[in-house]
């Protein structure tokens, strides 16, 4: 009873206040641009929130459906990207050699935009679905990899010595020490990657898909300012998907790595 009260006050209240605050400021600014400054394309620059909300009531079904498609695409890309990223991090932490060999190329690979990558990926796998997942994984793997590598590398020398005193093999050291120690880093990498996976999914949807939030996004832009509210609705849906993924990962973090200082309750009754 008391706990839920605390939860409401400590976590929900600020979020509600934030959301309301942002909505109010946005609506006010939108009104200011449109009515006071009367700048051209004011509604395209910053549309009325209530108009966006209105499109949600009309097209809520579509947005939800397409949002779900995007979410699933993002999930696949994210899973593959996170797996690839962690694997690369592990390989690189296993030997400086691999790191120095692979790293410059991993960085360079991130400079190939999807536009240049797509023909190659399509050319190699010759299957759209696989190609899409590969491309969105390619977009997400890098932050995961870097953050996890940092985590793997920064275990305290003392805990490493304990492992050595047991003559622990490389694999055991990973499993018992480096991996758990890298979880905080891994999770902040995943938190960066999760919203990015949504971006990736949307980007990939523009590579010739006919479903997904990205598709409506592009089409509403293309058909001009008269579709601006619908376009902004898709932006809002994208942002919400991002928030959702982020919160999801945070929740998993609390379960998987509960020992971190930020989750400790400090003395007293708190």
């Amino acid at each position, binding site marked *: 009873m008391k706990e839920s009260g605390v939860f409401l006050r400590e976590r929900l209240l600020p979020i509600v206040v934030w959301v309301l605050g942002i909505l109010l400021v946005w609506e006010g600014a939108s009104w200011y641009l449109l009515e006071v400054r009367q700048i*051209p*394309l004011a509604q*395209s620059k910053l549309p009325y929130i209530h108009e966006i909300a209105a*499109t949600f009531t*009309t*097209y809520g*079904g*579509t*947005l939800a459906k*397409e949002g779900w498609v995007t979410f699933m695409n993002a999930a696949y890309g994210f899973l593959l990207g996170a797996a690839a990223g962690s694997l690369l991090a592990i390989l690189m932490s296993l030997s400086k050699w691999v790191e120095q060999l692979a790293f410059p190329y991993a960085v360079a690979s991130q400079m190939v935009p*999807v*536009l240049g990558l*797509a*023909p190659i990926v*399509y*050319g190699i796998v*010759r*299957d*759209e*679905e696989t190609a899409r997942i590969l491309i969105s994984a390619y977009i997400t793997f890098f932050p995961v990899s870097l953050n996890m590598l940092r985590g793997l590398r920064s275990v305290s020398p003392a805990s490493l010595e304990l492992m050595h005193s047991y003559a622990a093999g490389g694999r055991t050291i990973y499993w018992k020490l480096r991996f758990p120690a890298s979880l905080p880093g891994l999770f902040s990498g995943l938190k960066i990657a999760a919203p990015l996976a949504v971006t990736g999914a949307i980007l990939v949807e*523009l*590579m*010739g*898909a*006919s*479903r997904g939030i990205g*598709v*409506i996004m*592009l*089409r*509403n*832009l*293309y*058909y*001009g*300012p*008269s*579709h601006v509210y*619908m376009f902004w609705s898709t932006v809002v849906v994208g942002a919400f998907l991002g928030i959702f993924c982020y919160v999801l990962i945070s929740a998993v973090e609390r379960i998987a790595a509960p020992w971190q200082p930020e989750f400790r309750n400090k003395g007293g009754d708190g």
Partner: protein
Amino acid sequence: ACGGNNGSSNDSGSQPSANGGGDGAAGASETVEVKLQLKWVPQAQFAGYFVAQEKGYYAEEGLEVEILPGGPDIVPEQQVASGAAHIGVDWVASLLAHQEQGLPLTQIAQIYQESGLVLVSKKESGITSGADLKGRKVGNWMGGNEFEVLALFDKYGLDSTKDLEFVKQGFTMDQFLAGELDAASAMTYNEFQVVLSEGIAESDLNVIDMNAEGVAMLEDNLFANSDWLSGNKETAAKFLRASLKGWKDAIADPEQAVDIVMKSVEEGSTSRDHQLKMMTEVAKLVAPEGFDLNNLGWTDEAMFKQTADIALQFNVIQNEPELSTAFTNEIVEMARD
């Protein structure tokens, strides 16, 4: 109902490999899969294919056609060459450029007879002819869409790097509407309508038409992967036959065509009204006044050559194309029988 679903229905048997299938194998009972890559998002610009699909013309020919949407990052030529699709839609100039780089592509039909590209400007900027563009900011999407405009500049002796500011235009008309561009590129069937729907009267706009200026190039065509084509001429002909039938229906009954197109369009992304306007404008390009619809799909060598010449002039291509391999009317002829 539309084939646009990106489902993973393409099993390995449908791979457009060079010698795959063959016409002999395409018996009456087995349906053959054909993938069509559009240049842009599903809309009335491609009405013929959607009509053919919806009315079962493809099915009648024993084809199972999948229509792949395009987008700002999709190069249909790449898709067709790499095997992601069998047949594609693009502009002829782009096709020529890709052919020259050795992509195995052959044009099998010309759908649009005239150019839909115009330069719009607001009346108050006083741009009534190409010559007035001097010193102005002119936009285009670039990436293969800019050659007609370059030819226009050339016609009026303007150097696009010195005499005016020729800049990239996004896939929205915002820059023009916000007054950032003096003249913007627009397709009669879409961007021009977008401008009009923003409450700007047609009478407040100046339009420079590429056809009237004599710098028009051929636009939407159909091209196929050459390797695939050599073994699947019959299939291509069936596809073309059904597609042309679809186009004729679409032009005969735009309302119905738009109803069909709307089914392939995500709810909330475009309005029926807009698509109807698009269909009307597209009909004018596919079948200009006095055009014999029986010639639909036929590639006119003279027009093709004019397009190629302009392309050559602006370094889209470095050498004169070998017309005999660049396009073929053989499939159209087969489709007519």
